[in-house]
Every structure is written in C-alpha cells, then in structure tokens.
C-alpha cells in the first residue's frame, strides 16, 4: 500500500463533493439542500489545504480555507432566514412544491 499522498486527500474531496451534489439533487427539503452545499464547501476546503501542503504554497491555502468557512457561515444564516420565510408563506419547505412567485 502506497504512502498517504496528495491523491488520497483529493479522492476524499471528490467523494464528498459527489455526495453533496447527490444530496442537492435528490432531497426535497430545503434544509437538506443546504447540508449538501455544506458538504461541497468542505470538499473545496480539503482541496485548498491539500494543495497548500503538497504544492508548497505555504499558508495561502489555509487562509483561503478560512475565508470559505466564513462565507459558509454567512450563507447558512441567510439561507435559513429565507427558508423560514418560505415556510411562513407556503407552510412547506419542499423545494419542488414552491413554484409560485406571488400569491
């Protein structure tokens, strides 16, 4: 078995990314779609940090990962506020049943 290298981390990232996409397209609940987005952002973070280590980029990749985490927090807060409003308006958060722009 070969030593742990860049490929191993990239493969984990690919798996996380694919499962995030799978969650986004198969789930009907808007909160579950958000969870898929979080999985994808984590996959991107693993890529940044793995390339930062194995590509000799110093700490730049880690700083980018920090920025992604901050943006993910902002995105989750906004998205949940929108989901709460949608629930108030439509009494459901299933993304396939929300198909009206106005009453």
């Amino acid at each position, binding site marked *: *078995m070969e*030593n*742990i*290298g860049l*490929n*191993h981390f990239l*493969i*984990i990232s*690919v*798996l*996380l*990314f*694919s*499962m995030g*996409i*799978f969650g986004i397209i*198969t*789930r*009907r*609940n*808007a*909160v*579950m779609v958000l*969870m898929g987005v*979080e*999985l994808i952002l*984590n996959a991107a*973070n*693993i890529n940044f*940090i*793995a390339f*930062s*280590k*194995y*590509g*000799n980029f*110093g*700490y*730049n990749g*880690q*700083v980018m*990962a*920090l920025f992604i*985490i*901050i*943006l*993910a*927090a*902002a995105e*989750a*807060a*906004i998205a*949940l*506020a*929108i*989901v*709460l*409003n949608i*629930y108030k308006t439509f009494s459901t*958060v299933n993304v396939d049943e929300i198909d009206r722009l106005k009453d």
Partner: protein
Amino acid sequence: MNIYDIIFYLFAAVTVISAFFVVTTRNIVHSAFFLLFTFFGVAGIYVLLGADFVAIVQLIVYVGGILILLIFGVMLTNKITNVQIKTGTMQMLPAAIGVGLFAGFLLSTVVSTDWKTISRHVPLPDAGTIGTLLLQQYVIVFELLGIILLIALLGAASIARR
C-alpha cells in the same frame, strides 16, 4: 503502514461513511447528526494536513454554529406536533447514475494526473503566520469578509423577523 496512515484511513472512513448517510437517511435530524461526524472527520483531515488552526475554526464555526443553525432550521420548519421530520427524495436512480459517472470521471482525472508535489516541505502548524498573512497580505479581503458577515447576519435577522 505507520500510525499516520491508520489515523488517515480512520478519519477518511468517518468522513465518507457519515457523508453517505447524510444524503441517504430519510430522517432530517439523523442527517444533521451524521453531518456532525462528517465535520469532525474533515477537521481530523485538516490536522493531518498540518492545518490545525483551520481544524479548530472548522470545529467552532461548523459544529458550533452552522450545524446548530441547520438544526434550528429543521425544528422551525417542521410541524413537531405530527412528527413530520421525514424528507422526501426524488429521482434517486437518475441522480445516482449521473453522480456516479461524474465521480468516476473526477476520480480518474485525479488518479491519472501527475501532480507535481513537493513532499519535503511540510509547513509546521503555526497560527501566528496565518494571523500575519491575514493582517498583511490579505487585509482587504479580511476586512471585506468582516463587513459581509456583519451585513449577512443583520440581514438574516431582519429577513427572519418579517
């Protein structure tokens, strides 16, 4: 197989298996808790990559913040009285085929590409250097992100109250 490899495979297994359950379990609350294990596994992988500050931030922000927000979202948007915390799924088979093809393509690309890696340089874990970078080279981005976070949280509060 040394201890580093064993820990790596442990965290990789935790991450990937719990991510699989996140997207396949029907109960949303179970999904949220599997997401917790995924975030822990990813934090462990960050530590193995020499990024322990990012790992700590991951634990604080994701596990302590985003996951709590998601669980709040689940609780506030489901009728607790008639226990409707299930989520429907749609088009499982086409999605599985498409995502499988996509993942296979990405995996073959990753494995077949001859990545130019420099293995001798292992950056030592050092939060001070990250702080210096944040306040010197990336100071504009850092301040802008602070403003974005403030506006986003204020906006979220005002949207949710309406």
